[in-house]
């Protein structure tokens, strides 16, 4: 299953979290969330884990991708 990609770069707090929460609520569990700062990474991860998802990270150029999935 391909992951839904969310581009949350440059968005003020808490918009990355709002976008991810909406996606999870809509049933998208496998997400690739593109963020450009550590705070957004932390916040998105905390939310995903709260929603029972697992998170892993990878670097993509200067940006960070947070991948979420079910265990």
């Amino acid at each position, binding site marked *: 299953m391909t992951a839904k990609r969310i581009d949350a*770069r*440059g*968005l*003020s*707090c*808490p*918009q990355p*979290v*709002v*976008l991810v*929460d909406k996606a999870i609520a809509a049933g998208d569990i496998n997400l690739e969330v593109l963020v*450009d*700062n*550590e*705070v957004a990474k*932390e916040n998105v991860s*905390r*939310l995903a884990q*709260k929603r029972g998802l697992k998170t892993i990270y990878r670097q993509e150029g*200067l940006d960070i991708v947070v991948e979420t999935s079910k265990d």
Partner: protein
Amino acid sequence: MRNIFAGRIGIIVVGAVIGVIAALLQYFGNPPNMGICVACFERDIAGALGLHRADVVQYLRPEIMGFVVGAFFAAILAGEYKPRGGSSPLIRFFLGIFAMIGALVFLGCPWRALLRLAGGDGNAILGILGLAFGIFIGVLFLKNGYSLGRSYAQRKASGWIFPALMVGLFLLLIFRVSFSPNGPIFFSVKGPGSMAAPVLISLIAGLGIGALAQRSRFCTMGAFRDVMLIKDFHLISGVAALLVFAFLTNLVLGQFHPGFEKQPVAHTSFVWNFLGMTLAGLAFVLAGGCPGRQLFLSGEGDMDAAIFALGMIVGAGFAHNFAMASSPAGPAAFGPAAVIAGLIFCLVIGFTQRDRASA
């Protein structure tokens, strides 16, 4: 590198440290229930520069400079110094102006609202309720796709400007330059502006809090917002720690005086304490951070946050020049009208600034 301050224990420790330091700053000379108040201290800076001429609230507060510079160095050390900007700067400037007006109708930013409560000032309850209500309105906008648009990376060599401004202000404080007879820099000889902890203590406290808050992402507005938006209690646990530890420190130092009447630098108008902070809270959500958080973000290189902070300083000038800032006697002649104008402005921004793609 794992960030120990970003966890639950970290945020609680940071909140507790801020609470203790704030109460101690009062003990060392800062105004009562005003160990740290970002709005009041920016207002004092505006006064010192002559942007307003209220002679009881003029001082170059080193805490503010420490916040920005402390966050700047913490961000550099952590590899998080990233100059960025371009997300609706003019709107953020006006949000800063109205946030300050709201805060000065109440007489305090969210930090001071907590410190006032920790010192026994019952009027702060109205302010905190108003703050929560303003944040609640903002959360509704966020749920409906509110956005000021993306910011973009800027050159590395542009993020130092706001921290450098703070260093410049600090030099003005140290050298007490007089630019003309009876002219700026102004330093209050009476009133809250004349009450200050020793410069070195204030500066070190500011630098320490700036660094800790940058690492922990401490934000009083975000605390309430996250509870309402996603039922996340992470940030609010830090805010609760601030309140509890400031209260305990006040008890130890004999600084707790419960009541509503005759509280220091406060008035008893329930309605305008509430609505002033409603305006401030809404403006903070729309701008993405409480006044303290905006300073820490500015230190990291966020130029949009710096614009908001400058808006607050300019707003303080307006608030006092145009009889909008309250005094212990109560709301000023144009305070209520300014709050209503600010609420209308924020509602218009909330309804019109939406990102269709992200809604």
